[in-house]
């Protein structure tokens, strides 16, 4: 996809240091790109990790985001926050990945069903994650964490992206709206529904306090 760099995004009144760095990248200064990479690599990879819940895929997607940013340097215009643009590319790639992954999983399930049919009543083999003995506290923590991961994974992809940007990237409604290419009211609606689901699924966490 060729990124149309922020042509329809709102202008940023305050000077954005990242945007200034990106303008230098446009002029051929690769050192500025290194600075941007160092600054945003971890938040971006972590966002994608939580989004796709696959460590390898999240790094692959993050590399693609930075590659697209680098490729688009020639047409870059500092008309919006750099991070908004970056998360817009990241969300787009992650949503596509999740869509494709869903199709792949559906195909795998279909194949597994066919295999089971041909091999009698074989049950699909469940992967055992880690067989190391854990102390009780670690087990409780791991269980809680898995519940949280599963709850996030159960959200529709766009709701998931909105929650992750809101919670971990501390982005405002307007910035999330730009990243997800929808209206601010649509973002609020996504967040309300997502948090409502999470409150219902994770209600017991409140009881334990």
């Amino acid at each position, binding site marked *: 996809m060729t990124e149309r760099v922020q042509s329809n995004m709102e202008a940023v009144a305050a000077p954005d240091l990242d945007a200034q760095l990106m303008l230098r990248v446009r002029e051929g200064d690769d050192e500025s790109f290194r600075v941007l990479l160092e600054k945003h690599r971890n938040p971006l990879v972590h966002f994608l990790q939580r989004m796709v819940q696959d460590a390898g895929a999240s790094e692959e997607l993050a590399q693609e985001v930075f590659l697209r940013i680098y490729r688009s340097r020639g047409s870059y215009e500092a008309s919006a926050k750099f991070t908004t643009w970056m998360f817009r590319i990241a969300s787009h790639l992650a949503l596509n990945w999740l869509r494709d992954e869903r199709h792949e999983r559906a195909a795998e399930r279909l194949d597994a069903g066919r295999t089971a049919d041909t091999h009698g009543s074989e049950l699909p083999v469940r992967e055992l994650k880690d067989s190391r003995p854990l102390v009780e506290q670690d087990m409780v923590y791991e269980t809680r964490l898995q519940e949280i991961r599963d709850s996030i994974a159960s959200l529709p992809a766009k709701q998931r992206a909105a929650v992750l940007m*809101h919670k971990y990237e501390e982005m405002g409604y307007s910035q999330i709206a730009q990243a997800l290419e929808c209206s601010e009211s649509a973002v609020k609606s996504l967040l309300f529904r997502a948090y409502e689901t999470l409150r219902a699924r994770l*209600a017991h966490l409140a009881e334990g306090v």
Partner: protein
Amino acid sequence: MTHCPTEDVLLDYVAGSLNAAQAAGFERHAKECSRCDALLASQAAVWRGLDEWKPEPVSAGFNRELWRRIDAEAAPPLWSALRFWKQLAPLVAVLALVVTGYMLDHRAQQAVTAPAAVTVSTSEADQLERALDDLQLLETVDTASSAKPASDLM
């Protein structure tokens, strides 16, 4: 009791993005409203739960791999050379048509001129044959005259 605030106020309160006055107003309301108080407790629990989810560290080779990919793109790859030739394809096609047309035309001209050449060579052969016939005739006449008796000469 004041009216229940909208849900974005609850989210902003838990996220810590309300200003001090707004936050105090919401707290006052939540103390009086059991519904909002319960919502606040469950939203805060979700927030704390999400805080527990620490991400994995990024691979040490992330930057190196990214720069390798950037450098690979910077180098002119084979496909870009092909793309260059692809751009020239219409011009090459036109040139090929012109050359083919010229060759066909040239052959046609050769086909037209070839019978003339044959005609010329045929006439030359005829001329040669006629010359040989004439020579033979002369020889015959010469032989006949030399073979006449002397009385005839007298």
